[in-house]
């Protein structure tokens, strides 16, 4: 018995070994043969072009981060289908910034120092965006600050030569949205603001429009990021009886606030609006509570061929319609690759001038372009009305664009923006 067992094992080992040897030999032989026969192939001759994607996949803005990355990957697919950039296939390395400035810098350093990327695409929270922007300037790496809306990204002394912003600034969103709200619903506003750079500049941009129209601030409160119960704030708001409640909140915070605004029956008493809202949040708010007028960098209802194509591609790959976050990820990545192609070199020093001043089809009615002196993407900016109740025909039918402003009409002018970008 013992012997029998021993033989069995050794036979199995023998089979395994011989199998492995055969496979190995075939591999070596095959590899050698194909090498001799076909010669070195293009793809192997040129190293792949690595792009870092740094978006939040955890923390309060996780969902927006995932959308942006999904959009960016569509641009990568498109490019690789055409043979890549400068004959090199594009690959991405993704890192999670956790919606946290400290983590974003740590992950940014990892991408730059360990992975060795020369370009980083991503960012939802402006707090992380500003941190990564400073890091990339220092490391001489191009940063496409995909979805960070705080004015500071392209305005004043925190703007940098290596940073480009594919999305609208808060001021652009406010000028498109706030003037619409002021004309339609009255000029006494109450502000609830997320207490960090994005919230502050959003509120200030709305206030500026309000002041320009001779309006009045009924009151204001700052809330820390991650607040879930707004009831005490809403009681104050109701007591102040404003015409409009302006909420510069985003993500889960916005969802909680709008839901509770409904629960306290305030939509019958006043209007609500703010610099940003979008599909990811409106779906969670729910169609019965979806209400207000909001700034939007893009929407699935933008009626151009480019936008429809993009929506089709996105649906084909992910099985759902893209939010404007996905659109921004797409534009950010697509523009970076276009810049490299135009520069005819992957060198950062050559890609930056190739982007500056360039006009492109941003899938909107009017062409978009990269403004040379502040790296802001000048583009059509929208005000969307949130749809609710019976007018919602399907799960993605949550917004209607009620106003569109041309980028040059709403962006900071040279006189308004004291920025001076660094020399290359």
């Amino acid at each position, binding site marked *: 018995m013992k012997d029998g067992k021993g033989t069995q094992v050794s036979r199995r080992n023998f089979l395994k070994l011989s199998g492995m040897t055969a496979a190995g030999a075939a591999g070596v032989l095959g590899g050698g043969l194909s090498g001799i026969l076909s010669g070195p192939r293009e793809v192997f001759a040129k190293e792949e072009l690595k792009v870092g994607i740094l978006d939040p996949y955890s923390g309060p803005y996780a969902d927006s981060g995932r959308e942006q990355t999904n959009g960016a990957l569509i641009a990568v697919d498109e490019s690789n289908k055409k043979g890549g950039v400068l004959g090199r296939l594009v690959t991405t390395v993704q890192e999670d910034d956790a919606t946290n400035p400290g983590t974003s810098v740590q992950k940014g350093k990892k991408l730059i120092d360990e992975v060795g990327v020369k370009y980083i695409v991503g960012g939802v929270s402006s707090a992380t965006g500003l941190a990564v922007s400073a890091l990339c300037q220092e490391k001489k790496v191009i940063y496409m600050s995909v979805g960070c809306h705080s004015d500071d990204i392209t305005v004043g002394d925190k703007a940098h030569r290596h940073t480009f912003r594919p999305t609208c600034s808060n001021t652009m969103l406010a000028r498109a949205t706030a003037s619409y709200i002021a004309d339609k619903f009255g000029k006494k506003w109450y502000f609830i603001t997320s207490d960090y750079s994005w919230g502050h500049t959003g509120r200030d941009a709305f206030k500026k429009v309000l002041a320009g129209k001779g309006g009045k601030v009924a009151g204001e409160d700052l809330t820390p990021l991650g607040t879930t119960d707004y009831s005490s704030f809403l009681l*104050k708001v109701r007591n102040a009886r404003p015409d409009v409640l302006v909420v510069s909140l985003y993500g889960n915070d916005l969802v909680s606030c709008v839901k509770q605004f409904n629960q306290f029956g305030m939509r019958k008493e006043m209007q609500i609006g703010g610099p940003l809202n979008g599909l990811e949040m409106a779906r*969670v708010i729910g169609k019965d509570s979806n209400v207000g007028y909001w700034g939007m960098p893009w929407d699935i209802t933008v009626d151009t061929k480019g936008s429809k194509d993009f929506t089709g591609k996105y649906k084909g790959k992910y099985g759902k319609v893209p939010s404007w976050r996905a659109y921004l990820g797409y534009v950010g990545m697509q523009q970076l690759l276009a810049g490299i192609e135009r520069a005819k070199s992957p060198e950062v020093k050559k890609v930056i001038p190739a982007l500056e001043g360039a006009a492109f089809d941003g899938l909107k009615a009017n062409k978009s372009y990269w403004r040379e002196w502040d790296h802001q993407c000048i583009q059509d900016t929208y005000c969307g009305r949130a749809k609710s109740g019976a007018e919602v025909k399907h799960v993605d039918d949550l917004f209607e664009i009620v106003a569109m402003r041309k980028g040059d009409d709403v962006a900071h002018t040279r006189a308004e923006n004291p920025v001076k970008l660094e020399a290359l």
Partner: protein
Amino acid sequence: MDLSLLLSQLFNGIAMGMLYVLMAMGLTIIMGTMGVVNFSHGVLFAFGAYFAYLIAGKTGFFGALLLAPVVVGLIGMVLERALVARVYGKDPLYGLLLTFGLAMALEEVIRIGWGTAGLPFSAPEFLSSFIDMKIMFYPAYRLAVLGFILLLIAALWFFLERTTTGKIVRAGIQDSVMVGILGVNTKALFTGVFGLGTFLAGLAGVLSAPMSGIMPTMGDNVIMPSFIVIILGGVGSFWGSVTGGLMLGIIVSMCVQFVPAVAELSMYLVMALVLLVRPRGLFGEEGLFE
């Protein structure tokens, strides 16, 4: 100052505090009986909301209110048997590390199972109106939650004070070793207590889902205030949790009204003050968790 606004803030503070009471009750009986600081309480709160979403699709809101906390309680009991039981009697640090890690792992489970996006969830139709309270119109749902938690506190009190099982639980909080020596099956007691505690967390999750929406991180924002409630009230104290929760709710809402800049900080300030005067919390007893 408008008196009706002041009263409405006061009332709203009480209503907000009640949810913390529910969370703190669960935490405090676990802490008192087993000496484990359960950091996974917040994510179990989120589990309550997610299961409610799942169940409500089939049975409606009240089916979810009934079943989801039970499911969370059962999960709690499994976790207790499989993992938490291993750290009893060891340095509290072990329990802390274990439940903290558990919280992160379970949050990932939520992301994998339900996605990173939040989910919509609404109160039942007939509770989506408002009640005219003279001082203000108040959401019917929030009033119902307030009433429900008050009833629940009464039921819990009855259970702990008037039933034999409840007396064993209270005795366990006082001295679980002695309870074991007296012939009580402490293993079953511990599992039951952990189940009851997590049941309460799940219940709080279901109740708050219609107010704030359902998201993977929803537990993060309630866990800290819940711990503060316990520290204010004193570990293991029933009325301590109730008082602490009410204090916290009222203080936060009053700060929002008068000094919004310190609203977030106020709970920590109060905690520091109470600890200076009464290091064991308002109702804390000597010898518990020391």
